[in-house]
């Protein structure tokens, strides 16, 4: 069970479908694995449904309704097999984005302890990347240029503000803090990371 969660405003934007894709993907992976956030996300979706149900109907002409009915024959009903979660512990979204396994990815070595693999989400305004910190490794002190979301997939790390473990979700805003993250001894950490682009596409807070 994680100890660090997205704020409720963020889960609201997520449930409303208004979050940029890369951020939504990051929140989604946390929510999938956090029952507490899953419950509130479900309730916030109910809020959307209530707003939807209370909308002022806008008249739709018969020709438009008929256009929908005329297309029913072309749109075959979908069959739903009971979708069971795959045995893999890698979140489904990442599996989709990676098209393979962590080891198949192209990693860039940033330092002797840190390597990064960028994944393409198609979101033009955010980077989305997996970070891997070697067990016991340190990342130099750095500042944050844009809003960054971090989700810990495996292992953990700590910084001046706390100690973070698998499933924890962190947000760092520009100029909010500088901290030297340190990977916990004998653990390996990889996490998706989304950051608003500002200038250089490969620039990262990892320094």
């Amino acid at each position, binding site marked *: 069970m994680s100890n660090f969660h997205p704020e*409720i*405003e963020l*889960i*609201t*934007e*997520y*449930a*409303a*479908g*208004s*979050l*940029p*894709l890369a951020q939504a993907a990051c929140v*989604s992976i946390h*929510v*999938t694995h956090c029952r*507490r956030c*899953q*419950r*509130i996300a*479900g*309730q*916030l*979706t*109910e*809020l*959307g*449904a*209530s*707003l*939807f*149900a209370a*909308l*002022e*109907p*806008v008249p*739709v002409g018969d020709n*438009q*309704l008929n*256009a*929908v*009915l005329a*297309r*029913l024959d072309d*749109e*075959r*009903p*979908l*069959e*739903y097999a009971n*979708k069971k979660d795959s045995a893999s512990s890698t979140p*489904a*979204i990442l599996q*989709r*984005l990676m098209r393979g396994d962590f080891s198949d990815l192209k990693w860039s070595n940033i330092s002797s302890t840190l390597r990064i693999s960028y994944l*393409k*989400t*198609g*979101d*033009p305004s955010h980077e989305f990347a997996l970070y891997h910190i070697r067990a016991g490794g340190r990342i130099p002190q750095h500042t944050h240029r844009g809003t960054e979301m971090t989700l810990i997939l495996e292992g953990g790390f700590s910084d001046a503000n706390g100690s973070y473990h698998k499933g924890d979700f962190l947000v760092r805003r520009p100029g909010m803090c500088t901290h030297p993250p340190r990977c916990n001894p004998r653990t390996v950490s990889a996490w998706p990371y989304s950051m608003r682009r500002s200038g250089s596409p490969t620039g990262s807070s990892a320094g």
Partner: protein
Amino acid sequence: MLTVTNTLDDEDKPLIDADGKRIDEWSECLTLIAQQQDRAAFTRLLRHFAPLMKDVALSGSTLSANHAHELVQEVMLKVWQKASGFDAEKAAASTWIYTIARNCRTDLYRRLQKFDTPLSAEDVSDTPDSDDAFVVLHQKRSRDRIRSLIKELPNDQAQILAKVYMEGKTHSEVSGELDLPLGTVKSRVRLALQKLQLQLER
């Protein structure tokens, strides 16, 4: 934990049959569509939801009339295609249709912005309905509570929720559009959520 108070009038309560199934009109329609591809049931549903969907398609968005039509049609056809994925014991029909509408809207916006992405809005939306009976009941009670309390929200709070949910805008986009500080937008959302008794459990 949330405090749950059911303040609904009797007439708003969905009917539950002997098997505990919800038998309100829209879930009945969806079930008929799933089991028999019932066009009459689909037509009833279409006449009710297409006008709501059209409101979503037109409200505060930059969609052209053609794209708005496309969105309404796409949502309704998805409802037809996916009806067998609806489980009346776990979800309300209107919530299920809302999530389809929300995802189609997001996907259309992204298509129009020429996103090249392997992810659909459905891939990153919330997880499927729970199998846990307690969670299902809890969810149903939240729904009833929200639907009754939402009428009491002050206008300034309801307006922002409408922009976030129905127009798909982030808090900072709403802040720019209404010329309000981001902090004001966030605090109105927070106040609205408190009034609806939506809070993270500690």
